[in-house]
């Protein structure tokens, strides 16, 4: 690792030194392509964020890809119902690594105002790993921009080697998550035990 002082000194002389990890992360962080994946109300704010006033293109994230094969980022924008949850997981599995998830809005985080409904999944993090969560119902487009910036920060600081390297660089970790099926009463399994466990009740 090159130390910061030397790096600054060299930059003044017009010599730019970087590591492969930084270069790789810099490229990835500035071209996060989201999946065109609108579920409900938040999708309209997601579209507004990519339109004239808010202009998601400033962050290199305006290229909404209709196909999961070309996308890096899944913005879960809206209520995930039990009928839709298997498809969300399947789409996530179809995205190539490295991939990230933003849970946009109260519904994607926890079920939000519709939590008491019989058909609403109480948080998309029960099935897929969420990197950034944006509160709000719906969050403003500025909040989505902030989430993209938070995600960029996360990507920039990812180490490519060592024990805390990201999941896609660990050969022993499964790439795809099990897709839930709609059983007799509910989704089976009700959550992905590797990702989310119901909180233990202490009496």
């Amino acid at each position, binding site marked *: 690792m090159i130390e910061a002082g030397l790096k600054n000194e060299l930059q003044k002389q017009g010599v730019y030194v970087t590591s492969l990890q930084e270069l790789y992360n810099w490229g990835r962080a500035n071209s996060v392509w989201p999946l*065109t*994946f*609108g*579920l*409900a*109300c938040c*999708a*309209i*704010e997601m*579209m*507004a964020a990519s*339109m*004239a*006033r808010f202009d998601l293109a400033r962050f290199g994230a305006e290229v909404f890809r*209709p196909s*999961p094969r070309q996308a890096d980022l899944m913005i879960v924008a*809206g*209520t995930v*119902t039990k*009928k*839709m949850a298997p*498809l969300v997981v399947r*789409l996530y599995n179809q995205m190539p690594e490295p991939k990230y998830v933003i849970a946009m809005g109260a*519904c994607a985080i926890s079920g939000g*105002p*519709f939590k*008491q*409904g*019989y*058909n*609403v999944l109480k948080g998309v993090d029960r099935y897929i790993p969420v990197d950034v969560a944006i509160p709000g*119902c*719906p969050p*403003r487009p500025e909040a989505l921009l902030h989430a993209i910036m938070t995600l960029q920060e996360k990507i920039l600081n990812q180490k490519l080697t060592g024990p805390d390297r990201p999941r896609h660089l660990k050969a022993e970790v499964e790439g795809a998550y099990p897709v839930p099926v709609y059983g007799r009463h509910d989704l089976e399994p009700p959550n992905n035990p590797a990702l989310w466990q119901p909180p233990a009740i202490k009496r």
Partner: protein
Amino acid sequence: MNTPSQQFEVKPKLDESGSPIGELLEISMGPHHPSTHGVFRMDVVLDGETVVKLKPVFGYLHRNHEKIGENISYLASMPYTDRLDYLCSMTNNWAYALTVEKLAGLAVPERAEYIRVIMAELTRLQNHTCLIGFFVQDMGALGTPMMYAFREREKILDLFESVSGARMMCNYMRFGGVRVDVSDEWLAETKKVVGDYGKFLDEFETFLTENEILLARTQFVGVMPKELAISASITGPMLRAAGVNYDLRKVDKYGIYSRFDFKVPVGEHGDIYDRYMVRVLEMRESIKILTRALADIPAGPVMDPKAKLRGFRPKAGEVYGRVEGPKGELGFYLISDGSPNPYRYRVRPPSFINLTILEDMCLGHKISDAVVILGSVDIVLGEVDR
């Protein structure tokens, strides 16, 4: 003479027994598809590229709106109505408030009626603008019309935000009035936005109305005959494009719409182009109503002093209230048993009922036209699945 049906009706080739010749291809479009406006699935059977069968599949956004509404108080349902048709929360609020006011016998002060009309017409403007952006995008005009549409929408959303605190989910109307009064500065700002809207529409129309591609893709495509529209209880711009002069603002004269002088644009052929044109003309009429309402708005209270929001218990009975939303007749049906919660809470969603004849409009057209036909129906899945 080339009547639309003679010129454009394409039927799959049939053998003696009446089944199509050649191999049929069944495609499941959606629920993750960029042109389905949310999570909506169409099971399409294709003969080559021609649609021979289309089955809409709903329910991917069923979030128990009606069941939740039966378990919470009347007032607590108001924010949920925002999330029905999330592009036009103000008209949803109005429909629900109107229904409960009918049930409880509440009066609405003069100023609140004017504010409601202003909000509803602003909602109509932004809904129609966005819709045209969306469905032109479905035809392949990626980006540009949407950019213009959303630029104008943001101006209206700013107005909503400054008065209600939220851009989309306004939760602004209450039983017997509106939540907060609007200021004089807000009215001046609205006048400015409304005054400029006509210019924007001129610009929008210069690009679109006589555009060769738009004409080729929309004229005589997805024709809905008048009789079918009436028998399938289609409402809103879809019905008027088919040539039926039916607008609840004229029929019911709810609120204070009888005071305004406006025309109801009516189409002739019932194709997509007529639906586009009816919406553009409706926006121009909305501007007229808005200009008049902004000039006439009186001073005074915005809430009925008799209205009691907390501990609200209407007398037992049942009621159906409806307004002309931007998508059609939006109705609420409530049964009260005298308790704080409604016994039955039912929404009559315009986009769901308008969607029921999707197959009739798509049969015989190409698969790429089915996408545009779906876009012209103007659906919002929050309302379709509830």
